[in-house]
């Protein structure tokens, strides 16, 4: 009983989120930054919807982008309907604001999941993963066969400056789209959080933990998986609807394996076991994807390395790490445990620096120039043994600190 949160404690994260969303436009002015923030909002919804399957329901999907993409297509086609209806102002769509298109995305994604999901949900595990992989490839390939629906390789274009405008909420600049994204990301995150608190949300955790036992408390696992699959498809579609409004174009790429992989990447980097983990993951991965290429030519490699490092050394993800520190603080053990963890962080940093240096040096060797070196205003000579000695020193120092902090942690555990 004592662990139940007071209303204020339960409300605090939402009030803080609201505050952050209100403050962001005061600090940001460039359209480029707003574009990245809008993309983060889309990816937060997408990553969280993915975690409804994997983290909450124990279903590893390689085809979640299908529902994201179909939601986006549903939304962009309706956006075109709104545009067409605008010429004479007649009909239902003439009165449908673009602001509500994520709802169309939700409906499209959920309907698609409802139509295809039942046979998939018989088993979780490898069978489910393989089937969803097949679905993803099937839909991505099949989309090329229906150019009127999917627009061929170029995709479907539209214009978001159509239809009725409510409360003066126009969608001209990325800064305008920001309010649209902020509204929907907050609503979607709250809805998905609330879902975890419902009986179905809890039962989806139960089916993840032990599907066999579930039968003996009266529920066939398949029904529960199917309902979670539909809900996850709906929220992925909602994210797709946000993307359609944000970009005014949807291409078949949004249905494909790369997009599905992005969802897994974001959720895993952020942490599957904590509700806010995928939010953290979506922010980190989106920022890396968007900004890193300004500083280095090997940006994709770094995203991959971060993913590898998290999976190998911090399987609970960044969110899991935050949660570990929080619990240690609650138990009053933080002062005892923090030095060991900080040591670990320093060692990771040193080894990462060594890795970055060697990757960029090799890049300079093979291409004759290196972006990161130029950005930093450095002119290292990759053929000089001294430079490489420095790299080796970084690795050695990282290893040493790692060993020392591991011993420290073990001595105090």
């Amino acid at each position, binding site marked *: 009983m004592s662990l139940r949160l007071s209303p204020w404690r339960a409300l605090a994260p939402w009030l803080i989120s609201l505050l952050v969303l209100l403050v962001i436009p005061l600090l940001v002015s460039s359209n480029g930054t707003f574009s990245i923030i809008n993309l983060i909002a889309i990816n937060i919804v997408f990553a969280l919807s993915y975690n409804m399957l994997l983290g909450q329901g124990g279903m590893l999907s390689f085809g979640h982008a299908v529902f994201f993409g179909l939601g986006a297509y549903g939304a962009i086609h309706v956006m075109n309907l709104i545009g067409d209806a605008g010429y004479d102002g007649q009909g239902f769509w003439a009165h449908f604001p673009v602001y509500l298109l994520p709802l169309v995305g939700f409906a499209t994604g959920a309907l698609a999941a409802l139509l295809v999901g039942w046979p998939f949900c018989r088993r979780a595990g490898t069978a489910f993963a393989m089937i969803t992989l097949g679905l993803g490839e099937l839909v991505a390939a099949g989309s090329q066969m229906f150019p009127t629906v999917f627009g061929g390789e170029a995709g479907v274009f539209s214009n978001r400056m159509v239809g009725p405008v409510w409360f003066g909420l126009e969608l001209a600049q990325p800064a305008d789209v920001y309010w649209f994204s902020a509204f929907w990301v907050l609503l979607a995150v709250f809805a998905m959080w609330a879902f975890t608190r*419902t*009986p179905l949300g*809890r039962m989806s955790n139960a089916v993840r933990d032990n599907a*066999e036992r579930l*039968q003996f408390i*009266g529920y066939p696992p398949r029904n529960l998986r199917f*309902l979670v699959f539909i809900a996850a498809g709906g929220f992925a579609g909602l994210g797709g609807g946000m993307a359609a409004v944000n970009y005014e174009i949807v291409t078949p790429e949004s249905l494909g394996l790369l997009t599905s992989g992005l969802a897994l990447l974001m959720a895993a980097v952020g942490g599957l076991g904590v509700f806010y983990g995928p939010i953290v993951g979506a922010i980190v991965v989106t920022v890396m994807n968007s900004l890193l290429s300004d500083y280095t030519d090997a940006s994709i490699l770094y995203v991959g390395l971060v993913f590898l490092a998290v999976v190998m050394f911090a399987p609970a993800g960044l969110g899991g790490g935050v949660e570990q520190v929080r619990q240690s603080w609650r138990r009053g053990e933080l002062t005892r445990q923090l030095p060991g963890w900080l040591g670990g962080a320093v060692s990771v940093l040193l080894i990462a620096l060594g890795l970055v240096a060697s990757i960029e040096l090799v890049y300079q060797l093979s291409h004759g120039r290196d972006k990161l070196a130029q950005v930093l205003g450095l002119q290292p000579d990759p053929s000089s043994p001294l430079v490489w000695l420095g790299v080796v020193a970084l690795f050695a120092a990282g290893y040493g600190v790692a060993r020392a902090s591991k011993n420290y942690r073990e001595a105090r555990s």
Partner: protein
Amino acid sequence: MSHALTIDDLKKSFGPAEVIRGVNLRVEKGEVHAVIGPNGAGKSTFFNLVSGAFAPTSGEVRLHGQRIDGLAPEKIQQRGLARSFQVSNVFGNLSVFENLRCACFKQCAAGYTFWRPAASVKRANRRAEEVLAMIGLADLRDSPAGALPYASQRALEIGMTIAGEADVVLLDEPTAGMSNTETTQAIELIRQVAEGRTLMIVEHDMGVVFELADRISVLVYGEIIATGTPEAIRNDPRVKEAYLGEEAA
């Protein structure tokens, strides 16, 4: 019908291996019925057939007179038969309370509900708290079930089995692997569980069996060779030879 369970000529083969070879058994309403037998006699298979984990090869199982053989486990659970497992079989990442509450949702028809919080399903919450107190795990209410000490996990196992208010309960070796003190506590708990319910238990510990059971059936090589009161079973020469004899020797 005064029989809670009626089992007629129940058989189960796995390929050429006939594991259950024609079991006939009547379990009376409200009794504690123990099924004993040497290792490999088919006790667990027998439980799996009755609870729906496997479908029988032939034969009939009736719950309060209605056929349940071949039904899916969740259908059998809905008709009022619940079982526990020999190896603890809980939802490891969920809290003790959440394990119990999930086991209560069926009775409230709430498991598929996504339009209101679980905390507002009053009946499930009340029942979960009740069972929590009954199995003596109130202190561990918010611990993850997978991290519980062994005996507590066994108690939770029983708690989840009875949380759904089934009136026929099958317990598969509820005291296996427990210390003496833990066993005494478990017997106390099983006594409480038995109140107002029909209980069938598989158990290795003869002390537990003779303490709890109203009647005992002896399963040997897939057949029931004797059914009777503990006194009658103790003195049955066939049983002595087949089973108790091993312990006496």
